[in-house]
């Protein structure tokens, strides 16, 4: 049984079918790319996978530790609790907070105290806060962002913001990451750095990653399998070379030959 299985997923908006009957399986530890022309339904698919939208038909199942969890029945925050997190096409950091706080918020689940503990600071409050603080710093060190811990997220250079967003998603404890155009708006050097960053974290933290990307160099470089969407439908899948030479894919990108 595959780690993540998307089964006959359809999402309609009014009469428009943004995603129609898409089935994809992802194995644990894989790095999978999702490509397609603009408006192909990639982001909509992500939004269904992360619970922002409810699917019109079909379901999304996560198999972990011998249990099957139907993600498509859960609200976004519960999906995150299942170890699934995402980034956004248009960076959605907590801009006016520090890098450290961005990470701490992602780690909020680990707080060992409730409202009473927070208000009175009795019980495990101080210990738990110290623990979260330490974990957040350790985590930032791991992703090489510790030097920026006390900077506001909005003051980070663009490339670092993208990186922080990925780091923040991982800090939720996620084992499965959905990255929505992580290299959007980056220059080749930044893209190169990001590619290395993704490869590194994936190995170190045993992550499974699904990413949407327009930058073919990134996709072709690191994705083991690629799925191609066009007009909401899955038109091809396979390795980089297989996809590159697929006639349907070429047509989708270049338009049909008359």
């Amino acid at each position, binding site marked *: 049984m595959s780690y993540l299985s998307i089964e006959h997923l359809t999402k309609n908006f009014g009469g428009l079918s943004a995603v129609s009957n898409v089935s994809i399986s992802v194995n644990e530890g894989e790095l999978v790319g999702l490509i397609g022309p603009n408006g192909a339904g990639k982001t909509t698919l992500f939004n269904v996978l992360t619970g922002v939208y409810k699917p019109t038909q079909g379901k999304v199942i996560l198999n972990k530790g011998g249990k099957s969890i139907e993600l498509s029945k859960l609200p*976004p925050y519960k999906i*995150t609790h299942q170890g699934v997190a995402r980034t956004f096409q248009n960076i959605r950091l*907590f801009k006016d907070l520090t890098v450290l706080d961005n990470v701490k*918020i992602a780690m909020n689940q680990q707080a060992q105290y409730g409202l009473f503990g*927070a208000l009175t*600071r009795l019980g495990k409050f101080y210990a738990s806060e110290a623990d*979260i603080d330490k974990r957040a710093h350790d985590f930032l060190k791991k992703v090489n962002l510790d*030097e920026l811990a006390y900077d506001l997220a909005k003051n980070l250079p663009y490339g670092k913001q993208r990186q922080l967003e990925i780091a923040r998603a991982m800090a939720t404890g996620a084992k499965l990451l959905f990255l929505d155009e992580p290299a959007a708006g980056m220059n080749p050097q930044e893209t190169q750095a990001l590619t290395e960053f993704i490869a590194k974290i994936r190995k170190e933290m045993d992550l499974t990653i699904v990413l949407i990307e327009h930058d073919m160099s990134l996709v072709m470089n690191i994705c083991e399998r690629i799925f191609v969407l066009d007009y909401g439908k899955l038109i091809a899948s396979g390795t980089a070379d297989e996809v590159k030479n697929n006639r349907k894919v070429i047509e989708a990108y270049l338009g049909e030959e008359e």
Partner: protein
Amino acid sequence: MKNLFSKKNLIWLGILIVLFFLVQFMIDARIIIPYHRTILFGIGIFIILGVSLNIIIGITGQLSLGHAGFMSIGAYSAAIVMQYMPDMTGLLLGMLVGTLVSILVSFVVAIPTLRLKGDYLAIATLGVGEIIRIVILNLEITNGASGISNIKNLISWPLLFVFVVAAVVLSANFKNSAIGRACISIKEDEIASEAMGIHTTKYKVIAFIFGAVLASVAGSLYATTYYVVKPETFGIATSINILIIVVFGGMGSLTGSAVSAVFIGIVNMLLQSYAEVRLITYALVLIVVMIFRPQGLFGSKEFGLDKILGFKPPSLKKLRKEEST
């Protein structure tokens, strides 16, 4: 324990003790005359109201315009209980009743309305405030439009001081905790917050109830300070007065709200006989602040000891040093 008696907390404690005895001395020595004392108590009550509304608006980012409604719940609860028990027990019991009622009301209100966004939420909470006022206006136990008078005056500087300090400390603790961080993340970006595993509705409801309870406590203190409660006192104008305190002090700055409540209280006293000019000035300042500094006069910065005492966020050097030792 080490954390509780940190240098910073001890200094705060020292400042509070000095402030307490200084004011107490001034009251005993009649430097603060009874008239000024009543104003001082009013300021204290509005500090609680400002800080509690700031939890909802400034920290969690949910614009509520019904705060006076929750204040009135506390005021009437205290007033009614104190009709039968005109002593400190009655006041505290009334406060407790007010707290329970406002938890109940704010919970019932919060669950549905907090699903709404921005302007819709503002209008819905305004509607809730009005509904509370109309209900009070029509109930028998609240004595309708004439309200309840002859409430026993039990307010004193120590009593006020304890409640104001408790409210501010609890609010600060709320803000500086995992719960506070969750609330701030909702204000920053609700969608991202939910994607980080934050149950946004839950935290919005917690913040709303927390703010409502503090407002209710402030209302109980109001009842015993001014010994009269009337429905008209708790209308939209009062909700907007509290909003003005929050905006002046800065959205998200609890100390800012406290300072601004003191400032506005003093200005109100000085401009006592020019009510319209005063209100017009506030309205103008509200507009100007929103146009030029929408995060409020002091933004989300807290007036803290960190700067004064030279506490800086632990620098990297220090972090590295700690590591090597």
